[in-house]
C-alpha cells in the first residue's frame, strides 16, 4: 500500500473502485488523481501559472529517476494527468508506474511546502481526506 501526505492508505476498496472506473493501473491512477487534487488546491490560491510551473518542475525532477515521465511534459494542465495515464504509459510495468506517480506526487507536495510553508498543507490534506471519504461512501452505495 502507498502512503500519501494526508496519512491515508491506498486500501483494497479504493483499488477496487479505481479498477472499476477505468481498468488502468489503479494505484498509479490514484496517485495521479491525488496530484490533480493537490494542484487544484494550489490553483485556487496561487493561480494556473504557478500550477503549471510547479508541475513541470516536478515532472522534470521525477523524470530523473523515471525517464518515461517526460511523456507528461506535453500536457498543459494537471487535470489532464489522470485522464492520459493509460494512453501515455501502456508499456510501463504497474509497479514502476505507481512508484513514478508517487515520486511525482511527493515532488508536488514538496514544492507546495517550499512555496507556502504549512499554510496550504493542512487544507490540502483535509480536501484529500474528504474526497477519500466521499469515494468511500460511493463504494458503500455500490
Amino acid at each position, binding site marked *: 500500500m502507498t502512503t500519501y501526505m494526508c496519512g491515508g492508505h491506498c486500501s483494497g476498496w479504493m483499488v477496487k473502485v479505481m479498477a472499476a472506473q477505468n481498468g488502468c493501473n489503479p494505484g498509479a491512477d490514484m496517485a495521479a488523481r491525488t496530484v490533480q487534487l493537490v494542484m487544484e488546491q494550489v490553483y485556487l*490560491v*496561487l493561480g494556473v501559472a504557478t500550477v503549471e510551473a510547479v508541475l*513541470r*518542475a516536478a515532472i522534470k525532477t521525477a523524470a530523473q529517476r523515471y525517464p518515461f515521465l517526460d511523456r507528461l511534459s506535453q500536457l498543459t494542465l494537471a487535470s489532464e494527468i489522470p485522464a492520459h495515464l493509460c494512453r501515455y504509459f501502456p508499456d510501463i510495468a504497474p509497479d514502476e508506474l505507481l512508484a513514478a506517480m508517487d515520486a511525482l506526487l511527493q515532488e508536488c507536495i514538496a*514544492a507546495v511546502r517550499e512555496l507556502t510553508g*504549512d*499554510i496550504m498543507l493542512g487544507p490540502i490534506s483535509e480536501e484529500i481526506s474528504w474526497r477519500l471519504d466521499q469515494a468511500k461512501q460511493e463504494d458503500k452505495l455500490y
Partner: protein
Amino acid sequence: MRQVQIMRAGTGGAINSWRFIKEAAACVATAPNPAAALSQLLDIALLALDAPAGAVIRMDDEAAALLTRHEVRTLVAARGLSPYAQQHIRELPAALASLGTLAALTTITDLALYTAVPPFAALLEEGFASAFIGSLGASDRLQGYLVFWHRDCGHFDRLDQRMLAALLAQFSAVVQWGIPADKEPELPTHGETLAPALNAVAATRQLQRIKDAGQVFVAATDRTQVHHALIATLKQTCHFAACAILLFDSEGGSELTVVARHPLSAAFVHDTVHHVVRAATRIGLPALSPEPLAQTLYLDAPDDIADDATLNEPPADRVRSFMANPLFSKNKPIGILGLADDGENMFNEEHLRFFSVIADYAAVALENVRLREDERRLWEAAMLEHQRLELVIASMAEGLIIVDEVGRITHLNPVARNLFASAAPGAREWQSLAHLTGQSDAPWIAAVGEILSASLTGKVVMNHELLAGATIDSVPLTLSVSSAPCRDASGRLLGAVAVLNDITHVKQIDRLKDEFVSVVSHELRTPLTSIKGYTQHLLRRMERQSQAIGSDRDPGAPSPLASYEYRSLSIVQSQAEHLERLVNDLLDLSHLQRGRLPLHPAPFKLGDVLAEVVRWAQISTEQQVIQLEIHADDTTVVGDRARIMQVIGNILDNAIKYSPEGGVVKASLDANPLEFVISIADQGIGINPDAQEQIFDRFYRVNDLISRQYSGIGLGLYVARAIVEAHGGRIWVESQEGQGSIFSFTLPRLPHIGHSGANKQGC
C-alpha cells in the same frame, strides 16, 4: 459616513451598519466565554470602524476579579499593535484617569491632547495619531476601556456616533456577562451568522487594497519604487521582517534583493536566501548556490517603510515563517517573491491569496522597469552613436552633403559649408536642392545639384570632376564629387549622400608633372636624334660597302653585314628607336594632357608597317622569336602611319619585355569587311584580371613583385589607346596570369580620324 460607504459599496446595500451591529450581537450570543466574545467583537469592530488597531482593557482589579474566573488579563484583547505598543497601553487606565472622567465615547484628535497621554505618545511613534475611547461597564461602574486607533487624525470624527454607541453597548454587555450570574444581561439573539457579513466587508477591503496596489505599481518607474510599492502594499495585510525578490534575466543571470522592514541578523538573511533558492528550484528556475547569492545580494532598508515598532528590538534571528510566489512574465517564471518573518505562523491563507495577487502586479511592474531600463540603454547607445557620427561628419576632410528623399538638405558638414561659402553663402540645412542651386550662378553648384538629383533616382556617380572656380597657382579649384542613394533594409529610398573632395592639389601636381615630362622629353629628344641619325648613317654606309663588294667577295669570307660591328650598330639603332618611342610617348602624353594629339592621315599598307616593326623588333632581340602572320590581301588603310607604327612598336616592346627566354611572340593581321584586327600574343607573365581594366591608364604599372622587375614608365599602352581611339578603333587585352597575353586593336577600313580626347575624367 465612511464606514457605511465601505459596507454599502462592497455588498450592494445588502448590509448596513445597523444590521452589522445586530450580527455582532449574535456572535456574542454564541461565544463560549467572555474573553472569546470580546476578541471576536474586537475583530468585528475593527472592520466596522476601518481601524488598524484596537484593544480592550480592564479598568481595575475589581473588574479583573470579576472576570478572572474566565482567565482574562489586563489587556483583554489587542489587534494591530506591536509588543512594544501593547506594553505601553497596559498603563493606559492610569493615564486616562489623569484626564478626569471621560464621556462614554471620547474621540481624541487633538495632537497636543493625544500626546499628553503617555501611552498614546508611544503609539504616535508607530504612526497612530488619533484614538477613539469607549468606556465599558455599567452606568455606575467603569470596568474598562475599548480603544481604537487610526493613523488619520480626523478618522473617528467621521463615524456614526450612534453606531459607535451600539458597538460599545455590545462590549459592555459582554463585560457585564462576566459579572455573577444573578445579573445576566439580556443579549439579543439573531438567527443569522456573522460570517457572510465579515467576508463581504473583508472582501471589499481587500478589493480596495488590490485596486490601490495596482495604481501604485503602474506608477513605479524604477526598481526602488517597485520595492516601495511592494512593501507598502503588503504591510497593510500582514507583518513581515523582510521581502526577497529573486529575478532571472534572459541570459540566465540572477539578482537577489532583500528589502528589510526590521533589523535582520546574518542568519536570517542566510535563511531567507536558502528558502528563496529552494522555492525557485521547485518552479523550474535554474538551480543556484545559496552561498554566493547571499554574498552578492542587494540589501535595501528604506526608512519610510521600516517597521518602527520593531526598530528597537533585537534583529530577527532566523526565519520561522516564509511564503513565496513565482513571478511570471509571458507565462514563464522569471523569479520568486518571498516574505519572511521570525515569528511563528505569521501568514495564513488569506495573506497567501493577497500575496499572490500582489506578486502578479510586482512581476508586471518589474518587467516594465526592465523594459524601461533596456529602452534607456538602447537610447543612450543610439545617442552615443549619433554623437559619434556627428563627430565623424564634422571631422571629415571632405565635404559631405546628405539630402532626404524629397531633396531637402539634412546634413552639411563644415567642409561643405566652406566650399559653398563663396558661391552659395546661404547654403544651410533643411534647404531644398532647388533653392541651393537657385541662389547661385556658379555652374558647379548646379552640377552638384544634378548629381544629387540623379542619385535620388538611384544612380551612383563616382569621381565626377568639377571646376569650382578660383585659381591657385593657375590651377582652378577642382572637386571630385561622388554620390550615391541611401536605402533602408527594405530597399526604400531614404535620400542621397554626396562627398565633395578637393583635388586641386592633385591637379597641381599633375600639371607640374606634365610640364616636367614635356621639358625633359624635349631635352632628351635632341641628343637622341643625333644618336639615331649617326647610327643610321653608319649602317647605310656598311650596307653600301657590302653592295659594292658584291660578287668580288671571297665566297669563304663573311659578309660585312654579318660582322659584329654591323650587328652592334643595328642593336644601337633599334634601342635608339626604342628610346625614341619612349620619349615620343612622353611628348605625346603632354600633348594629350593639353587635349590635342596631332595626326597626319594618309593611305598606307598596314601589313607593310606591321612587317617593318616586326623586323626591327626581331633585330633588337636575340632571345625571343617573333612570328608574323598576315591573313589579308589588301591591307590599305587611311591613318597616321607613324602613329600606327608607334602603337605596334609599344605593344611589341611589351610582348618582348615580358616574354621568357626562348619565348615566341606572334603578330597577326586579320581582316573583316569593316575593320582590320592586329593581335600580338606573347608567352609572358600575363596580367591579373584586376589590372586588365587599368592597364591602359597612364603611368599604370601592375603592382606585383614580378612586374616591378621590368622597366617601363607605364605610358606606352596609354598612348597606344589614345592613338587607336583617335583612328576610330578600339584596343583590348586578353590575358591569363602565368600564361601570356594577347593585345589586339582594330582600325576601320573607312577613315575615321579625329583628335584624341585628352582627359577622360574631365568635365
